[in-house]
């Protein structure tokens, strides 16, 4: 890879880490002007930066405000890339319904997951916070979605995921369900009949890809 481009990508990652959204936009434009592909800008710039942010948050080096500022920088840059990613005539590799479950208003993590999925070629329909099972089911039907992603940050609301899963199964909708959020675990996912648990946004992408691959193999 061209050294200038590599340097720019690294700067873009740093602008995400530092939460400098104007700089992120500027660098994204520069990279596009150099004919660099949106996909690579995303992977080696934005997502590389966001992974560092996630790691630092887990290590208590940075805290919620910094995560939010980084997410904003990523969002601004992604707004430029998204139409291009969609434009390149590649159909979405799958449709995901994402939401934070009823009673819960935490959406920082869910938004990051949605961004990463979009960045990786999925169509994401974000039904927001405080989402009831009706909302999930309506969205799955309307969008003909293959995947449902649920987020919960409260131990009280994570139990609601079980209700959503039961209703989805009751409707016999052929969706794969992944869940996440700080109090959620693999064991909990198994217990309530979810198809998978994702620890972070990169995991969410890996899982969504697996779901689609499984479906294609069937």
């Amino acid at each position, binding site marked *: 890879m061209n050294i200038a481009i590599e340097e720019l990508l690294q700067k873009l990652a740093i602008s995400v880490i530092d939460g400098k959204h104007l700089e992120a936009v500027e660098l994204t434009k520069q990279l596009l002007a150099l004919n660099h592909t949106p996909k690579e800008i995303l992977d080696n710039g934005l997502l590389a930066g966001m992974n560092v942010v996630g790691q630092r948050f887990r290590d*208590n080096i940075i*805290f919620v*405000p910094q995560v*939010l500022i980084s997410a904003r920088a990523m969002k601004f840059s992604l707004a430029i890339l998204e139409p291009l990613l969609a434009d390149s005539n590649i159909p979405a590799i799958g449709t995901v319904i994402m939401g934070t479950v*009823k009673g819960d*208003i935490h959406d920082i993590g869910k938004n990051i997951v949605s961004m990463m999925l979009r960045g990786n070629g999925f169509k994401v329909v974000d039904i927001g916070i405080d989402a009831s099972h009706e909302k999930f089911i309506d969205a799955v039907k309307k969008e003909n979605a293959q995947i449902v992603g649920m987020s919960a940050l409260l131990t009280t609301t994570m*139990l609601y995921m079980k209700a959503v899963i039961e209703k989805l199964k009751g409707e016999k909708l052929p969706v794969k369900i992944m869940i996440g959020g700080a109090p959620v675990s693999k064991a909990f996912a198994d*217990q309530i009949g979810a198809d998978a648990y994702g620890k972070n946004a990169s995991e969410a992408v890996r899982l969504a890809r697996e779901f689609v691959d499984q479906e294609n193999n069937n």
Partner: protein
Amino acid sequence: MNNILSTLKSKKVLLCDGAMGTELQRRGLKVGDCPEEYNLSNSKMIQGIHKDYFDAGSDIVETNTFGANRLRLKFYDLKNRVEEINLAAVNNAMEVRPKDKFIAGSIGPLGELLEPLGNITENYAYDIFSEQAKILEEGGVDFILVETMMAIEEAVIAVKAVVENTFLPVAVSMTFELGKTGLKTPWGVDVQTAVTELTKAGTDIIGSNCGKGFDEMIQVIAEMRKLTTKPILAQSNAGIPELAGGNLYYKESPEIIASKVQELLTSGVNILGGCCGTTPLHIKKMREVLDLFLSNII
């Protein structure tokens, strides 16, 4: 009516209540229900909880108003009932209060982010906190307890709103967690910053609540005691909830916490109580330990 601050001076340690939220869940609050609305539609349940805490030995109970501010009630389409809900909450505590016991008006975080991270301006936040504090004062609480704060800006605005708009004493508590870089709130505020800024904002009592359990709480209080001569409040969670058989349960039982309560007391706590997962049984145990402590037996 005794003033909470002078009573603290003479008695040194008072016992507050345990959890409201998890106690409501235990008694039937459903996911998605507004806990503060129960002050109106389920006043007997709320009074029952207050009564159980007083019976267990609490000197202070907190009103069921943690989320009864305009912004959070809006989430349940109840934003026009701020006054009604807060007044009913104070009344529910008064109905069962024994003579000489105290009522703290609980004020929790706004539930939305302040500028520049979110859309809430400083002035708007100030107005929301002032509104709730004034109603709680009108209802007749003895002091205001601003609790579970994570952002220092928001905590400072809340304390100032109470100081500048009511005649009540004010207590404030933040939630700390022990991470790789020490004790900090999820917003990254350390104990030193909390003490400095909240003292400057005019708080009378300072403390810590929620969090991961008694062991971390002991560390927070020990650190805080070195930094202030003000009365300190500690309301710990009963550990982190775990799932067992489809139900949540908190590991730190009344028996387990007894020795930890003792440690908290020697660390210099002046108001002791519990947060998520603590029950009237935890408070009863705290009362026993506290009584021994106060009579210099331990």
